């Protein structure tokens, strides 16, 4: 069975971040035979003083494959209970990943979370229609992390754009990188320009800095920029917040 797993509000100013906690949780889930997981995507939500986020109001979501959904979900709940940071308000969402499901209401909820202040009641109401296909739970504090957890899972299910956790450090002394070679080496599924338009030509690449990938159009995407007549994977996504 394929799932989306999303957590939010698990950190404080001194703890590890929510992305690292998710990676740690999924690593332990794999070691203990509960599930295998994919890459983590970060989703940014509304920045507003009315929301009690730690510092950035983002959620982290990955995919998972499991044979025992109930056992895996119980493992995640227990993990968050014991490993989320003191003073945090953790929320967990485990959502069925199935193309036959119509995620429209959850995608809409995710989009709303990027523009409006939402409540836990709205999150539970949005989840209700999905019955057993969605698990939503609170694991301490005010539990408002369920809002971001559901919103992040909805956005991921809707293939919404987000930053992929981690940086790539391709060997820069290699004589020539091409987009095809880079894709083969690092699992990049798509290249795009800064406007999001797909680049299909096999281009020669140059690297100057560690590279970030994004999840765009449902694919692992490298954004390319042109500099001094060369193409470079964009190292960091400089964006306004909120």
């Amino acid at each position: 069975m394929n799932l989306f797993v999303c957590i939010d509000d698990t950190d404080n100013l001194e703890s590890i971040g929510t992305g690292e906690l998710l990676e740690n949780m999924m690593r332990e889930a794999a070691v203990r035979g509960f599930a295998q997981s994919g890459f983590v995507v970060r989703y940014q939500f509304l920045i507003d003083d009315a929301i009690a986020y730690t510092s950035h109001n983002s959620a982290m979501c990955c995919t998972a494959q499991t044979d025992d959904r109930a056992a895996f979900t119980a493992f995640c709940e227990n993990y968050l209970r014991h490993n989320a940071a003191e003073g945090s308000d953790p929320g967990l969402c485990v959502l069925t990943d199935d193309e036959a499901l119509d995620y429209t209401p959850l995608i809409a909820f995710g989009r709303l979370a990027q523009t409006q202040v939402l409540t836990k009641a709205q999150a539970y109401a949005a989840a209700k229609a999905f019955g057993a296909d969605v698990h939503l739970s609170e694991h301490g504090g005010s539990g408002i992390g369920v809002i971001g957890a559901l919103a992040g899972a909805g956005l991921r299910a809707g293939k919404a754009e987000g930053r992929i956790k981690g940086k790539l450090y391709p060997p820069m002394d290699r004589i020539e990188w091409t987009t095809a070679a880079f894709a083969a080496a690092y699992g990049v599924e798509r290249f795009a320009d800064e406007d999001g338009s797909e680049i299909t030509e096999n281009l020669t690449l140059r690297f100057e800095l560690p590279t970030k990938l994004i999840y765009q159009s449902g694919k692992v995407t490298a954004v390319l920029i042109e500099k001094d007549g060369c193409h470079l994977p964009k190292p960091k996504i400089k964006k306004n917040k909120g």
Partner: protein
Amino acid sequence: MWKEENGKTTFTGGKEAYQDAARIAEQCSLFTEDCEEECMTDDPRSCYNCRYRRWTKESFVCMKGAGQ
């Protein structure tokens, strides 16, 4: 580059004053780099990448009140 309001120290440069944010962080003894996925500039040391910045609609608050 800072204003004090309601006990909060807010950066007045907004979200795109990359050079100022890097210059201030360079001199700040409390700077601590945030986790990779929350860093937003290529400058390794910048208030924009500090774990003690809390984003606001227009800018960020230094949670350590130490930016000045």
